[in-house]
Each structure stands twice: as structure tokens, then as C-alpha cells.
């Protein structure tokens, strides 16, 4: 049973996403910003992290950079979530508002439950 850490400051969005993922037998942990997110990463070591970009204290972009720079955690796949999507491409280096991140994948909010699950499964099977 894969462990997914969901890091997002929107309570309602987190609840909804948690419901979706738990129905597919994922074990879901939730954190509300990058600082709390790091605590949970260290404590629980998830198999995948779903990371919202716009968060207080430490945003997803920064947390992603830190994760990938740390050899202990760089292998955990990161799925970046945002409601601020303009024209971005998905690749090893994803472009987010002109910045580059090393996220493994990138998806817009809101996301169809089926699509979300598909992407997560794809990342986990790599």
C-alpha cells in the first residue's frame, strides 16, 4: 500500500483529494505548508509527494527544490499541483511561470479523480 503525502494549504481541496486517493487504497498523510511538509517527510518517508505550489511559509516550488537537492529524499517522486497554470510544459525540468523545477510531473487544479490516480500510479511504477 503506497504512502502518499499531500501538501496543500487548502483544507477543502486536501479533504477532497484525500477522499479520492483513499478510495484507491492509498495511505494519505496531509500537511498544510512546506515547513509541516518537511516534518512529515522526515517522520513518515512517503512513496510519493503531491505538492501544491502556492502555500504560506514555504511554497511548493521551494520545497521541491530542497527535496531534489537532498540525496536522502531526491528519489521520492514529486507531483506539483497548481491553480496558477498558464502554458507550461511537462518534462524532467518543468517550467513554472518562467522558473524551473525538478518536479517529476505537474498537474493543474482541479483535477479529474481518474486523471490524478493515473498520474500517481504512473510515477510510482517508474
Amino acid at each position, binding site marked *: 500500500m503506497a504512502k502518499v503525502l499531500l501538501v496543500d494549504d*487548502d483544507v*477543502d*481541496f486536501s*479533504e*477532497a*483529494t484525500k*477522499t*479520492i486517493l483513499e*478510495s484507491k487504497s492509498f495511505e494519505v498523510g496531509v500537511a498544510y505548508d512546506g515547513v509541516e511538509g518537511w516534518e512529515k517527510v522526515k517522520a513518515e518517508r512517503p512513496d510519493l509527494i503531491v505538492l501544491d505550489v*502556492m502555500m504560506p511559509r514555504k511554497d511548493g516550488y521551494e520545497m521541491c527544490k530542497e527535496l531534489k537537492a537532498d540525496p536522502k529524499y531526491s528519489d521520492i517522486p514529486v507531483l506539483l499541483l497548481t*491553480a*496558477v497554470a*498558464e*502554458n507550461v510544459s511537462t518534462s524532467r525540468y518543468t517550467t513554472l511561470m518562467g522558473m524551473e523545477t525538478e518536479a517529476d510531473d505537474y498537474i493543474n*487544479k*482541479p*483535477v*479529474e*479523480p481518474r486523471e490524478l490516480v493515473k498520474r500517481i500510479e504512473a510515477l510510482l511504477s517508474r
Partner: protein
Amino acid sequence: MTQQIQILVVDDEQVMREGCQRILSKRGWGVALARDGREGLDTLKKNRFDMVLLDLKMPGMSGIEVLKEAKSVDPKLLVMVITGYATIEFAVEAMKIGAYDFISKPFSPDQLILVIERALEKKRLEEEAERLRREQEKSLHDIATEKSKMMTIVNCMADGVVVTDRESQIVLNNPAAARMLGIHGSNLVGEPLSRYIKDEVLNQLINEILTCRCSEHSVLSRELVVGERTSTHLRAHACLVKSDEGEMLGAVIVLEDISYLKELDRMKNNFVAMVSHELRAPLAAIEQQLMVLRDGFIGEVSEKQRHLIERIKERTDGLMTMIRNLLDLSKIETGQILYYKERTNLNELLRKTVELFSSQAATKKIALYLEEERVLPPVEVDRSTMEVVFNNLVSNGINYTPQGGTITIRSSVEGNYIKVEVSDTGVGINPEDLPKVFDRFYRVRSEQTRHVVGTGLGLAVTKAIMEAHGGSIKVESELGKGTAFTVLLPLSEKEQE
């Protein structure tokens, strides 16, 4: 009305006096007589005379004394002295102190007339010349006043003014221009324009103006940034300076400081971006929750409930789209979108669009056809925004075409453009609404279109993107029959042969 010439004869000899009077009156001139210097001077004080005939050798006050005094009163007085044949040197002395000419006794009436006429004519010409000179002085003064008035106005202008000659050398500038270009000391005259305006496109445009490669009435406008330390945003408007005879003299450039506007734009865009996020995040949460509800994740859902939830989601989708369009439009309008132009075969993009909408079209039983021009030359376009264009047009087609209709996308080459036509067999657009469809937030409200969820921004964004690519879009429609949108994109220069 020319007044009669008046001549005063001052001579102690009565014969002389009367003789002269006879000769001069016969000529039509007015004559006055004086017996001696004193009487002569008194008469001069009382009347205006064009000339004085003055005998030099007189008892009492001599002619020379009379001359001196008369001239001191009126330096311009024409005095002709009469001398004896043997006393020419007195005449010379008289002329040195202001006599105009002399005549020596004895003289014939003709000689007298001739000498006087010559003097009068010369005086008349001198007066005429004096008059003309004064007039010219006045004109020059007026011109100078006008000119300095203009210069004062130009120097007080808030906008910068720079005038160049045919070789792009600066011939005139005002302090505002010097300030905007960041130069201390307001005189840039003599320098080449390119020394201060490094913007290549502007310099090239000015070159075009100067070499008459564009219409004489065109004003070329361009935004540029100057200054190394603090960038100043300027807008330059350049046009031709022509003489009255049509000779091309140079160019005049007006510089507007738009730094303030740019700052406002930047603030507005930050605001728009901020608002956009603040609106989107809650909407995203609402949609996620709706999907969880709809898909039965928290309990079974009846068909009616599911349908309602779908309808709610459509409205929130609409809001999301509106926010995205507003943000796009704001960026397009303030030139913020970085268009990454690449050589593209439009047919490729069109196929992508067809694929994207095929299931939506199928649901409504609408046939979606693509008629490609087989050999379509590539164009330099930003792919993602061009996708937005075609997606918008097809989406509109589907929304406004009833069940069983048809949408056709046709690509072709027309002159120096690629033409893409998206036509449908939909409800059509009222002629009244037709000119307004590209307006922001404009939505056609009719019985058939009431249920369509839309923002009224799609076509505004589409048009803005087309214009940013140097292309155009137009629409034709017939109520009840259908609508056709035609998009034109310019071929790249190489392909234009």
C-alpha cells in the same frame, strides 16, 4: 496723394528770386521766397519744404550760416546752394556741411530744373529705401518674435522634441528631450541621433522615414527603453519634415515618457495575477469537492443528483475559464506574453484541436471535419497561443450548433497568408450582434443560446492573439444557417515568394 513739391528760394537779389519763381512755378512746383537768411529761416520754421535754394553770397547772415542752422533744425532738409562761377570752393564747403548739391551762376532755366529734379528724385529714392528697410526690419522683428515664441513653446513642452536632418544628425532639441535621454546640458545639436537612441528598430524606422520608404503621412510609433542606470520607458513618435515645396528636410521625433504608465501596468498585472490566484484557489477546491460528490466517493448518487452536480461544475468551470481568459487578455494587452515563435505547420495544430474536441462533438452528434490544404507552408507562430485560437473557435462552433450539425475546418493558402476557416451549421449570429462579437464580455443572448455557459472573453482573447501575430480574424454569419470565422496568418518572409 502726392503733395505739391514746395521749394524755398533764399536770395538777396530780387531778379534771382523772381526768375526762379517763374521757372519753378512753370514746372508746377510751389515756390516761396525769402530775401535773406533770417527770413529764410523763419519761413522754414513755419512751413514744410522739399527743397531750399540758397544763395551763398548774401549780406548779413551768410549762406553758410543759414545752411548750418537750417540743417541743425532739420538734418534731412534738401539744400541746393547757388554760387558764383568764381566761388566754387564755397560750394564744396557747403556740401561738406550738408548741402545736397550746388548750381553756379549763371544758369539756364533748364539747368536749374534738371539739377533740382535730380536732387528730388534721389531724395525720393532714398526715402523709399529707408521706408522699405524699416518695413523689413519690422518683418524680421515679427518673424524673430514668432520664432522665439515657437521656441519658447517647444522648450516648455513636457514631451521631448528632437529634429534631425536627412542624415539623422540632430539639428534641434528641447530640454525635455535631453532630460528623457539622460543627457546633462540640453544641447545635443550636431550629434548623430544613434548616439542617444540605441534602439535599433527606432533608428531603422527613422531611416525609413528619411529615405521615403513609407507614406509621407505616416507616423511611426515605437516604445523603447533608454538609459543604462535607470531604465526610462519612452514612446517615440517619428514623422517626416517636409518643406513647402515638398522637399524632404528631415525627421521630427516626439518622445513621451511612459515610465509611469509602465509602472501602473506592472502594478495592475501584479494585481490581476494576485486576484486571479485568489479567485482560482477556492474555485479549484469547490470543483474538487464536486467531483468527489459526483463520482460517488462519499456515497451513492442518484441520476438526478449527478446531473445537478454536473451542472454546478459547468458553472464553476465557466468561472475558471473566465478568470484564465481575463488573465490572458490582461497579459496580451500589456505585451507581457512572451511569444515563442517557431516554424509550425498549422495542419498539425488543427489536427490536435480536432482530436481534443472529437468526443465533445460526438456527444452532441456534431460532425467535425478537417479539410487540409495538402501542402501548407510553415508559419512562425507561438504554438500554445495559436492552439487557444483554434480551440476557442471550435468550442464556440460546438456550443452554438444544435444536434446533428456540422463543423468544418478548412486550411488554405491565400496570397501571402495562410487562411483557416472554421464554419458551422449552427444558429448563426444576428447582424446587429455581428460587429460586437469580438468585444469583451459580449455574449449573444437568444432563446437558443441561453443555456450556453460562456464568458464572452473567448473571441476577445482570440482576436488579441491574432493581432499579436500580425494576422487577423473576421466573421460572417447568417441567422439560422451558420457562422464562419476566418483567420489569416502572414507567411514568413522567405515563404512569400
